[in-house]
């Protein structure tokens, strides 16, 4: 286990694996999306899930959530089968932008993360109601959303919506946070700010984070591990081992070059999109 300099972790805390998959595969509509995927995400790890469009990154998140069954192999999430630890897993789905007419307050959305699965109507003014409201306010403060949480979500910017959705995913104090492209459609300063926020949450709340990203660069400085999906398979490991020309070329089955720009950014060159790799889909 080697972690990047950004966050050395004492090995003593690595008891429970947040996620572990062994030889896992997912089939959708008769097609194998990926197979023979083995990975381990340790407690409070910050892990990026990378790969081209259609490689099966969202599919991996849904398999961890237990929304999609494994066609082969085994999986365990927080020591239980996928889908059985719902209360301790926070989730932010891909492309959830609210249109401008959406008349729901941010604070109600965060509240839903806490009590949206409970039946019946809560009595106002009870102590549990007050506790819930305090927790919602606390987690909104944590993501820096107090100034706009009571406005309708549709009127907020992409970055503000994203922060409140992260608050929603965090409100039940999960041990595992699954964020599907949370930096998508944000401008560069907001990408950097949200990435830094997630890193801080990961450390302060001791949550394991799986963050799906299209572009590695906004998060490269924060990562413990990388899961790279491509060509129907995956490699997992520390970023400096995975993001190399040799590993990615092997994964894609095509020559890939990883360039180190002078400002520390990584550029992956020659990366074909997934349909090319699979060779089984065309328009």
């Amino acid at each position, binding site marked *: 286990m080697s972690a990047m300099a950004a966050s050395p972790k004492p090995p003593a805390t690595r008891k429970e694996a947040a996620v572990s998959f062994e030889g896992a595969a997912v089939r959708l509509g008769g097609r194998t999306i990926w197979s023979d995927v083995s990975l381990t995400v340790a407690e409070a790890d910050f892990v990026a899930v990378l790969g081209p469009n259609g490689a099966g990154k969202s599919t991996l998140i849904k398999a961890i959530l237990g929304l999609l069954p494994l066609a082969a192999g085994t999986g365990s999430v927080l020591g239980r089968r996928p889908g059985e630890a*719902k209360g301790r897993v926070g989730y932010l789905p891909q492309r959830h932008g609210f249109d401008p007419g959406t008349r729901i307050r941010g604070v109600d959305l965060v509240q839903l993360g806490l009590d*949206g*699965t409970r*039946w019946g109507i809560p009595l106002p003014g009870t102590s549990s109601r007050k506790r819930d409201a305090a927790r919602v306010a606390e987690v909104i403060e944590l993501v820096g959303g107090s100034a706009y949480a009571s*406005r*309708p979500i549709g009127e907020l910017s992409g970055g503000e919506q994203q922060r409140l959705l992260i608050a*929603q995913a965090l409100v039940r104090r999960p041990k595992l946070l699954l964020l599907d492209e949370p930096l998508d459609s944000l401008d560069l300063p907001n990408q950097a700010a949200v990435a830094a926020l997630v890193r801080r949450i990961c450390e302060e709340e001791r949550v394991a984070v799986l963050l799906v990203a299209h572009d590695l660069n906004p998060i490269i400085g924060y990562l413990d591990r990388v899961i790279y999906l491509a060509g129907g398979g995956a490699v997992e490991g520390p970023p400096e081992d995975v993001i190399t020309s040799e590993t990615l070329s092997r994964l894609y089955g095509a020559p890939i070059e990883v360039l180190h720009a002078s400002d520390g950014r990584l550029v992956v060159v020659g990366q074909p999109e997934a349909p090319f790799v699979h060779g089984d889909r065309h328009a």
Partner: protein
Amino acid sequence: MPEAAVFQGLSWNPLTDMHQLFAYPFMVNALEAGTIVAVMAGVTGWFMVLRRQTFAGHTLSVIAFPGAAAASLAGLPLAVGYFGFCGFGALALAGIAGSRRSLSAESAAIGSLQALALALGFLFVSLYHGILNGLDSLLFGTFLGITTEQVVVLLAVAGAAVVLVAIAARPLFFASVHPDVARAGGVPVAAMGFGFLLVLGLAVAETSQITGALLVFALLVTPAATAHQLTARPVLGIVLSVALALAVTWLGLALAYFSIYPVGFYVTSLSFGSYVVVRVGRALGRRRQLTARLALEAA
């Protein structure tokens, strides 16, 4: 029969006029039925507008028309036709929503269902010539012809529907605004959608008996849409939606009692009027905010 039940017209004395409103049993039944329906329509309508299912709701109300016509044809109580057809319509709509190829395919399928319902209604009306007299009330309501037994049925159905919505309120809200996360958290999102359409079918069947198939929207959509404009708070929104539905029903009934125009006209116009006032008010408020901001930036 109450002795005081002699129609005197509007006296402009509020006490006398209030007294008059409650003098006739048919008015008492109308007020009771209107109150029951308004509460149910206010609650269900708020969720319907939230879920953007007004087109589905409108289709259910169109389906209520052949339901009532079929019941007349078969010599059954109208309620049987309303509830039977709306329940069946809810099943069909849930099937369409479940297959969900795309949003445009879904609305096209709903539209086709609506056309079929109108055609069936027309067929039943033609088959049973006698009903032509009653066509008006099938389409535009029988506010003033409600019997005491009907009020009891309405109360039972509305009570059941409101209790169901109350039990499912939070998961339904979650599934409506954020289905992916709700599903991941264990909310049975598809079942909620199906269950809600059934409750909506009940609400439409019930509202149709009062307002007729065509004016259902006056109580089911417009007050709820106005409430959504007025506030983004869920609990307050539902309360406002119910309050508006109650206000237009009561006012509409009172106005119709003292004038020659039908109840449906007043209820519809009042709810539409309140919607327009709120929309215009919000637009003006936004303009003022914008001007203030521009002035601030210019300063």
